[in-house]
């Protein structure tokens, strides 16, 4: 399969593709190296350089010590906030999206096409169109500036993607299978548990990875609906940059950036194949 001859043309191709790959890795390499350099060292030279003294302490400071807006607890509380939003919202939107996708793909009920069509419109509706109504709804139900509010938003909005993913996957299950099970007396939930769910792991992994990555990385709702100690880590990073703008702490900031990026990077490294499938599945809407 792989071509093993090295003609000049092929050497050129390898050279091109690997130099591009190296360029793509520059930002990651820079932030990794800076996360173990001291602020003084970075100011004296530049962001691009090899650590002279490995300042592993940056990670401890970034995790538990530095100050954002009068609170000196590091990035830890904001990481916890992001986890407390991303994990429940991922589970809720995936579970309900799977059931809804199952219902619209394998069952007929009045208005099914119509409602599915509207739900998928949610993929295209910009967040800016929902910002104001969400503000008012969250305020009226007393969830403004709470993590529960963010969970609510992401659980509901995530349904557009999760329903689409699962529906497109379940549509390939032969209807005869469902029909036979119904003749045997199996109902909606039993067919889901016994037939559909055992076939679902691949699409559920895709959906979970997609939802988790998106919710963890989300910024606009986090910065709009929460303040101070309630903010997710993306909003806290911006607040941190603003707080240290006068005396940049590039070493500690780099460590904070690394910590904030780690969960989704790990998910990507472990489930890359499923991540790409989510990307391409989302593209063929």
């Amino acid at each position: 399969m792989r071509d093993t001859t090295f003609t000049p043309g092929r050497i050129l191709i390898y050279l091109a593709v690997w130099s591009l790959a190296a360029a793509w890795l520059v930002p990651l390499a820079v932030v990794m190296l800076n996360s173990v350099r001291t602020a003084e060292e970075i100011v004296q030279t530049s962001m691009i350089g090899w650590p002279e003294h490995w300042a592993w302490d940056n990670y401890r400071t970034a995790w538990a010590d530095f100050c954002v807006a009068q609170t000196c607890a590091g990035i830890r509380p904001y990481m916890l906030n992001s986890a407390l939003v991303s994990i429940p919202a991922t589970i809720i939107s995936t579970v309900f999206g799977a059931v809804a996708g199952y219902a619209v793909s394998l069952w007929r009920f009045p208005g099914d096409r119509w409602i599915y069509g509207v739900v998928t419109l949610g993929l295209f509706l910009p967040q800016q169109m929902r910002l104001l109504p969400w503000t008012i709804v969250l305020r009226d139900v007393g969830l403004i500036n709470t993590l529960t509010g963010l969970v609510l938003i992401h659980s509901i909005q995530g349904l557009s993607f999760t329903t689409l993913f699962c529906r497109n996957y379940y549509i390939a299950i032969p209807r005869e299978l469902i029909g036979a099970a119904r003749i045997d007396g199996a109902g909606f939930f039993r067919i889901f548990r016994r037939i559909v769910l055992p076939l679902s792991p691949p699409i559920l992994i895709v959906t979970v990875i997609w939802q988790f990555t998106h919710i963890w990385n989300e910024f606009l709702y986090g910065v709009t609906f929460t303040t101070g100690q309630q903010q997710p880590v993306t909003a806290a990073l911006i607040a941190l940059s603003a707080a240290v703008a006068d005396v940049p702490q590039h070493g500690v900031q780099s460590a904070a950036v690394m910590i904030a990026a780690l969960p989704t990077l790990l998910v990507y490294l472990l489930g890359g194949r499923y991540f790409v499938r989510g990307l391409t599945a989302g593209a063929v809407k």
Partner: protein
Amino acid sequence: MSETAAARRPKVFGLVRRLPEHLTIWLPLLLAAGHIVSFSLWTLWVSFTPSTLLPEFGWVGLHNYTAVLATRNWRIAFDNLLLFGSAFVVLSLLTGLGLAILLDQRIRGENVLRSIFLYPMAVSFVVTGTVWSWLLNPGVGVQKFVNDFGWMSFRFDWLINRDMAIWTIVMAAVWQSAGFGMALFLAGLRSVDTDLIKAAQIDGAGPFRLYRRVILPTLWPITVTVVVIQLQFAITTFDLVRALTGGGPGIATLLPALVVYDFMFQRGLLGRGAAAAVLMLLTLLAVLLPYAAWRHVQARQAARA
């Protein structure tokens, strides 16, 4: 009478028995669909009211729209969107296609390379925007690095240059999302009919002609999809600009999404903010409606064939 009661009971009974499944089907779907429809109409309605800090009743017609369109912020943001949108889409398309073609040459380590070009997609724009803001900052980034090597006159200060700052956003956005185009194009390249390629090779087509005449023409439906998705991203870009330039220097890199946020939550002009959000939606529809029509025609042609 007894007959109708007997007929009705099982039906009511069945409905109650099946209540859990109706609830699990309808509740999430209705919440999702309901919020999409009602929130859109809600924002649309607010855009026609004199709302400032709080939503107000009343009707001011298109006043908010004319007011938004007349602001310098919106004009700059929209000009930026046109420049950023076209430059970003073209460059990330070409980069993605180039990467896909390179990776399609039966290369060793293809999986590793693919992961490298796609990893930015897994990271938040806040993170990547922050890192780019350091690299592009002339005081600590690439410029300083090159200056330290002795090339003192080297300048790379786009980040603080009003005319060039928008290109830093183009750069970071292309770096972040070229891998997406690559993944889709690569899938497309892999699904080209091998008989077609063999036939062209037997006819004596070299690699360049093979790509130009045989392979690339089959990719254009994917190209349209990639362009539309990248345009959708460009029109709604917010996080990247907030982290990279903050809209600056001055207001040189504003984009519509930042103007909406500014009107709604910094100036407390909800009516204007809502009007700006609707203008964003209209921009998006100008891209999506032709795309939907095209998809519809394609599907009908496929059904007929």
